[in-house]
């Protein structure tokens, strides 16, 4: 029973750490499927987390915080969109630029506005997301096996956690079952054909980039309004890049994205839990190896050693009409 208890705790923290990954990877899914590479997921998430923390601290309302997060993230997305769609600039360069601008600006503005060493003030109860408990969770906690699964694994998360996992089928439905999704995917594979059909490539890509901004806003808000009570400088700590890795690992498919995020989240949770304790069969694994594992796995996958990850064909290429 002890092993079962450990497993439940581990899975619970897996869910907790993979929520921002799910949001950010789905965000990347929308833009990359539309042919716009985006390595600024990290920056958008960080900017959104800061906006959420700052707005919620000032207004004392979690919803204002969430709205501010989405707004800032969408604005950053539009900068990326303007550079890479309208100006036909290099999408990677634009993404790198946004990551830097946000990394610096969140610290400078946070320090100027709140003077707490780059933090935003700690949020009180009404200004942050509360844990949602399912009905009867406490009553059946003692039921063996099913009790802990219901009470600790399914119940007892933040609202945004459920939104994140609901976004997986929703994204799938949007991308694969609606006209907008079909066109969005087409624009990432063969923008010329979409243009010939009389549909604006530019406007479609802008809409994809805005979708990305909204989802990154949720990811950032989760970090500073749910996972912790306030913004801490550099709090994304490479999660945007892990999300990017998860997106590639999932071969740009929504349901796979969720599993990839859960896998990388699980590795993260396991590394925290083990802290250098020996594993059965393998022995002592350095924490650093566990931390590097998502990246190593992605490299191995990209190299085509476990399946082949084929990106959208027009990814990273600005669209030039009639050439």
């Amino acid at each position, binding site marked *: 029973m002890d092993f079962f208890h450990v497993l439940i705790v581990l899975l619970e923290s897996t869910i907790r750490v993979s929520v921002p990954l799910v949001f950010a990877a789905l965000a990347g899914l929308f833009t990359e499927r539309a042919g716009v*590479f985006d*390595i600024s997921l990290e920056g958008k998430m960080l900017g959104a987390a800061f906006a959420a923390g700052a707005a919620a601290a000032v207004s004392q309302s979690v919803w204002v915080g969430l709205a501010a997060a989405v707004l800032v993230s969408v604005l950053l997305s539009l*900068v990326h969109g*303007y*550079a*890479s769609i309208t*100006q*036909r*600039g*290099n*999408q*990677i*360069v*634009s993404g*790198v*630029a*946004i*990551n*830097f*601008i*946000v*990394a*610096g*600006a969140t*610290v*400078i*503005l946070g*320090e*100027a506005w709140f003077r707490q060493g780059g933090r935003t003030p700690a949020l009180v109860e009404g200004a942050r997301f509360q844990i949602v408990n399912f009905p009867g969770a406490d009553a059946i906690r003692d039921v063996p096996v099913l009790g802990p699964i219901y009470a600790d694994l399914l119940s007892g998360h933040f609202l945004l956690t459920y939104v994140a996992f609901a976004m997986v089928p929703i994204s799938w439905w949007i991308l694969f079952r609606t006209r907008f999704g079909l066109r969005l995917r087409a624009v990432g594979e063969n923008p010329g054909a979409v243009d010939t059909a009389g549909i604006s490539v530019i406007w479609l890509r802008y809409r994809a980039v805005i979708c990305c901004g909204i989802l990154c806003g949720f990811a950032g808000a989760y970090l500073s309004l749910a996972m912790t009570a306030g913004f801490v400088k550099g709090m994304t700590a*490479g999660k945007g*890049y892990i999300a*990017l*890795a998860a997106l*590639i690992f999932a071969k740009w498919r929504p349901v796979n994205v969720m599993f990839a995020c859960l896998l990388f989240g699980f590795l993260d949770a396991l590394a925290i839990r083990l802290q250098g304790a020996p594993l059965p069969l393998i022995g002592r694994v*350095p924490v*650093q*190896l566990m*931390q*590097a594992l998502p*990246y*190593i796995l*992605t*490299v191995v996958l*990209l*190299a*085509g050693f476990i399946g082949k*990850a084929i*990106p959208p064909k027009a990814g990273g290429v600005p669209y*030039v*009409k*009639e*050439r």
Partner: protein
Amino acid sequence: MSVPYAKLPGWVEYGLVPLVNLAVAFLVAGLVVLLVGENPLEAAYHLINGAFGRGEYIGFTLYYATTFIFTGLAVAVAFHAGLFNIGGEGQAYVGGIGVALACLWLDKVMPWYVVFPLAIVGSAFFGALWAFLPGWLQARRGSHIVITTIMFNFIASSLMVYLLTRVLKPLGSMAPQTRTFAEGGQLPKLDWLLAIFGLDVGTAPFNISFLLALAAAFAVWALIWRTRLGYEMRTMGHSPSAARYAGIRESRIIVITMMISGGLAGMMALNPIMGEQFRMQLDFVQGAGFVGIAVALMGRSHPAGIIPAAILFGVLYQGGAEIAFEMPSISRDMIVIIQGLVILFAGALENMFRPAIARAFAMRGQRAAALAQTKGA
């Protein structure tokens, strides 16, 4: 918008357009300073004074510039072959192993001029090694070089934490760093170079690797524009299909280019490790690999542009420290914003002002032509 960009005279293409982009980046940075409630002009004064006010400050500025010349060249070499090496950070970090090994091995028995060449080879070797894998994976397995080099940055960071906490740390020490090197692992300062101009270098760690950086810049120029390999690299950068038709072996060029790029990034490690700290510490690269992207973009991937761009970023780093000291509400993170803005305006939005500038020149050209006609009549 399918009109190709008009051809502009050289000084406009390589002088005016980058300067306009840079000016816009600094204007936006000035707005951020205003937003924080400080005076941008005062910040600019502290920036210039902090970077050039004294011999010591100039020494620090050039010390930072040395680092950025290496990483800027690394990014530029890859750009020429159409590759985006975003992994300079990881390659420089791993390159540190080569420097540390050479120093730890010989610093007590040999003088610096014996250790230094070995450290150069070591740093270039380890940097190239870390770039070889992404290059090989791109050439042979078709994995995207941007993604793999990002992943390799993170893997390098984990690897170095492991090495510095478990392997290279002296016994009985808690700090994750190597032991301090003896005399042989310390590069001489270039105080005499500044003394020519009557300046005193003071405590600034401006050292001989600056000369190595200049030599590397010259070597890169010679490689790209004066050798067959450089020609093949540029051909591939302009048009991979043309290169293929010309019988250039694409995979070979990709791997070699990435290794040269990684080697240059790795050599950056010489400057902080042997020039300043005399030991290898955690995170000694401090983002210099990413600054290299901004430097290469601003310098238009030409060594003659990279050196001034690197000095500009040296000014930002050294002068930025002075701003942070004089104006507490503007911390060193301001540099990160400026860096991002430079990458945005000089890189991603480089064509934003070009149509306007081109129009201005077309109009001037027409007027001159009209003038010549009336004179002739």
